[in-house]
Structures are given as C-alpha cells and as structure tokens.
C-alpha cells in the first residue's frame, strides 16, 4: 500500500501528517509526503539548501511524521548498520558489517505548478492507494493557495482519498458501503480507521423506496460477519436514498464519514459531484472516499 500525503504550509497539514503516520503504523504502508509550490523553483542546489519555504516545511514534516513512531518500532527507521554473522557459500560464518535500509519507504517530495494537478499526477505516477489531505475546517474545508483544491483532488483521484478536517476525537466511523462491489481492501481500510481511532463502526445500507434489496441485504450480512470475526461489533442502519443527504448532514457532526464511490455504485448515482462537494465543505469531521 502506498499513501500520498499532500501538504502545504498550514497547520491543517500537520493533522494530515499525523493521521498518515497512524495509518502507516497500522498498515506498514509506503508513504510519500508531497509539498507543492505553485511558483517555479530553479533547479539549483542553492534553492534547496537555502532551507526556506516549502523545503523547510517538508523537512519539519518528515520529523513530525517520524516522531509519531517513537513509542513503537518504526518501519521507517533509516539505515541501521552493525556487525552480523552471515553464512557464506563455502560453509563458514563470517561477521560482516551490514547496513540494512528501512523496511518501508518514506519519500519527501516537492512538485511545482498547479497544486491539484500536481497531487493527482504524483498519485497517478506512484500508483498511490490513498491520498491524505488536511483542510481548513473554518473555511469550508479549503486550502490556502487554492480554496477548492481538496474537492478537486477528491473528485479527480482514481484512488481513495481521506480528507482530514477533524481536530477533535473521532468517536464513530460511519461507513456507507457500496454493497455490490465492496472489496477486501475497502473493508480493511475501514477496519484500520476503526482501530486507529478506537471508534465505533456504523454500517449503512442504502434502500430505494422499500426495504433493502436482497443483494444489499446479503452483502451487509457478509460485511457484518467480516467485522464480527475481527471482534468489531458494528451498528447497522438503513437509509433511503431520498434521505441520504440529510442523514449525512446529521452524522457529520460526530462521525468520520466513509463513502464507497465506485463508478457503478448506488452511492455515486445518489450523490452527485455537487452533493459530495457540499458534504466535503460542510463536514465537521473527516471524510474518507473509498474507490
């Protein structure tokens, strides 16, 4: 798994870094922290060594990321060297000076240009599984340099995206699953969020008019069994698609909203891009879009 955490110079990005570190600690994912400079930076050594602006911020973010692992073994520990006995082909052991690199890859990168395009390009080139972004909760989940950037990234990404807006404790993860095509990876990601935040899980089944469709009902049973086997007791809820917007508006007050937005999902059909944008803007909690 590869997580791309896109950052700028604002404090909300620190929360994104911390959330990324918690996810990486649980999933042992490879991580890229990506800073964006809208202005071109000359490709000279001096520009990078001046240590100003985004370069310094990225350096600090690396430290912040690594400090999250202080209490546990870090898969990102840099090169560790020491003497080790190694079995040689001729049948003897020899104590050699061995340097081992970190088990997982932490890359710190800086791109220039249009921020949203740069993030999406990085995610595409690196085949990221998840993009993590912080945003300013006080101003409709915006970014300073480009207010609409979070929405552009979430809507434009081919992979999952986590928008970190909450600074308070997440008590509940609300999971609107697209029961028709829910994947093992999706369930695992939700599982991770539940574990990280020690939160309760609510699984929402979407109905249209009458009760649950038999296939949705069946899928919810499988999903329930999946979590019960992991000693997670989810709460269940059925929401009619006509009431989904008001339901989500109510839930964003206290829960991390997790939406599976597959191309053919009922959820994607029910929630237009405009409605998702509104949800991202108004959410008082974090939002996870799973693809």
């Amino acid at each position, binding site marked *: 798994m590869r997580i791309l955490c896109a950052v700028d110079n604002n404090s909300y990005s620190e929360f994104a870094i911390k959330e990324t570190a918690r996810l990486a600690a649980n999933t042992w994912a490879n991580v890229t922290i990506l800073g964006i400079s809208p202005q071109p930076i000359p490709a000279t050594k001096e520009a990078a060594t001046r240590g100003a602006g985004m370069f310094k911020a990225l350096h600090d973010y690396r430290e912040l990321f690594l400090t999250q692992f202080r209490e546990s073994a870090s898969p990102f520990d840099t090169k560790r060297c020491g003497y080790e006995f190694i079995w040689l082909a001729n049948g003897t052991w020899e104590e050699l000076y061995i340097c081992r690199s970190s088990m997982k890859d932490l890359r710190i990168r800086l791109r220039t240009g249009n921020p949203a395009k740069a993030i999406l390009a990085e995610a595409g080139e690196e085949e990221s599984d998840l993009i993590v972004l912080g945003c300013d909760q006080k101003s409709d989940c915006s970014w300073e340099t480009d207010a609409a950037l979070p929405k552009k990234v979430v809507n434009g990404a081919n992979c999952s995206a986590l928008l970190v807006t909450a600074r308070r404790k997440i008590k509940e993860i609300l999971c609107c699953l697209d029961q028709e095509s829910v994947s093992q990876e999706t369930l695992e990601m939700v599982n991770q969020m539940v574990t990280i935040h020690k939160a309760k899980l609510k699984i929402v*089944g979407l109905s249209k008019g009458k009760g649950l469709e038999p296939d949705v009902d069946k899928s919810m*049973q499988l999903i329930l069994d999946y979590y019960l086997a992991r000693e997670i007791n989810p709460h269940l809820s059925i929401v009619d698609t006509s*009431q989904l917007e008001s339901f989500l508006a109510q839930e964003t007050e206290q829960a991390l909203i997790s939406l599976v937005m597959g191309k053919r999902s009922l959820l994607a059909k029910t929630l237009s891009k405009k409605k998702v944008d509104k949800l991202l803007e108004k959410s008082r909690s974090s939002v996870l879009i799973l693809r």
Partner: protein
Amino acid sequence: MIKILVPVAADLASSIALRYACQMSESIQVEIQTIHVKAASSEGSQLGTGWVRHTWEKTMLTEAEDEIAQLIRAERTHCPSLGEPLITIGEREEKILREIQTGSYSLFVEGTIPTFSSSYFSKRLESDLYQDMPCPFLMVKNLMPLRRVALILSEHVDHHRLIQVFTGIFGGSNLKVAVFYLHSPDSAGKDGEGLAEMTLEATVKALGERGWAPEKSKVISGQARELAGDLEDHGLLITGLDRHLKKKTFLHEFLVATPAPILLFWQ
C-alpha cells in the same frame, strides 16, 4: 426454561435476531423455536384445489425448508438450544401470532434494523402482530454483546411490572444490571425529579429483595440521542409501553435513538 419464538427468513434482520437469541442462551436457559412463513403469492394462492393445491403447497414448503435449513445449520454449531424450524405458508404476521398464542412462549425475538426515519419503530409497534402480542417482545436492532442490562424507567413505566418481566426472564443469570430513570427535559421541575428519585429508589430496593444489586442507578436527562449514546455499553434495554398511547413520549424518542436491542412489554 424460557421459550423464545424467532421468526426467520434468509435475511440480515433474521440473522442478527437468531444470533442474539443464541447469545441469550449463554446467560439463561432457553428453548429457541424458529418459524419461517413463506408468503403465498397472490397468483399461487388461487391455484387449484385438492391434490393440485396440495402438491403446490408441498413444493413451496420444500423450497422454504432448503432456504432456512442453511441459516439454522450455520447457527446450530454454536447454539445447541436451537430447535427444528417451523415452516408454513400464509400471511406472515397472522401465522406468527397464531403460533405465539398457542405455543406458550415467554418471549418473542425479532430483528429490526434501524432506519434513518423514526417511523420504522412506530410502524412496527402499531402492527397487528405487536399490538396483539401476549408476551414480552425483543427488537434486536444490532448484535451487541449481552453482558449488561439496563432497566429503563420513565413517567409511564410501571416499575413493578418491569421488575417482574426482568426477573421472570433473566432470573438466575449473572448479567450485570443498571437502572435508569429517563427524565424528559420538558417535565423538569421539583415534583418530577422527586417522583423520579422515589421510583428509582423503590425499584432498586425491590431488585435487592430479589437478589439483584444494580451496579448503577441514576436519573438521566438530556437529548434522546445523547442519552442513547451514553447507554451504549448495555447490550439490552428493558422497558414497558402503553399499548394504546398515541402521543409520542420522550421514552419513545429514546427507544428510536438507541442502537441497543430493546425488550418491551405492554402494560
């Protein structure tokens, strides 16, 4: 021995109801009887008479048996108190009610997955099946661990009957019990608070006389949703309702909001 009737179909609601009933068997001695009513389609029900109808019904029953056998088989491995299912054809609620009325059941358990709209709860309570229910009934909203039980008192709840129902079903179990008096924010005032405290005290005393020492007893007040959240570590809530009470009470609002299974009785 508590005799429980659980209606089943091959769906999620039945699955959680059945599992919850099985979970109860770890705390009390139960006999779980499942019933599956195969709906007769409007076309089919008019199909022929005599051997034609008989053959058609037999085919329907065989199909239903196969459908349910799988569910029961899956649960029976860890739920030995699960008996053979009753399988019948007809109008679901009518058939279930007839079975409850003739089968001397102590409890009816049904899966009820909550919906965003609160009407699901009222509709179920107002159904003929529930209105004519001769025994307490348990609505399993979620599969929650059954370790703690909360007895919910309120303005209209008969605490004598509440204790009777609780001890009648869970007598001899080692479940932890707590008692809460749900105080509506609208009925604030010294008289109301005094009554709440008195009822709570009387309930705790009566439970004590029957060998139960509640781990908690408290008057609680606030928003229904918040209170429901506060009591989430209780795997079962028990309370009484007035069968013909049309006005929606604070207790009603709370019961809609709670994700926990609720055991109700008419008083």
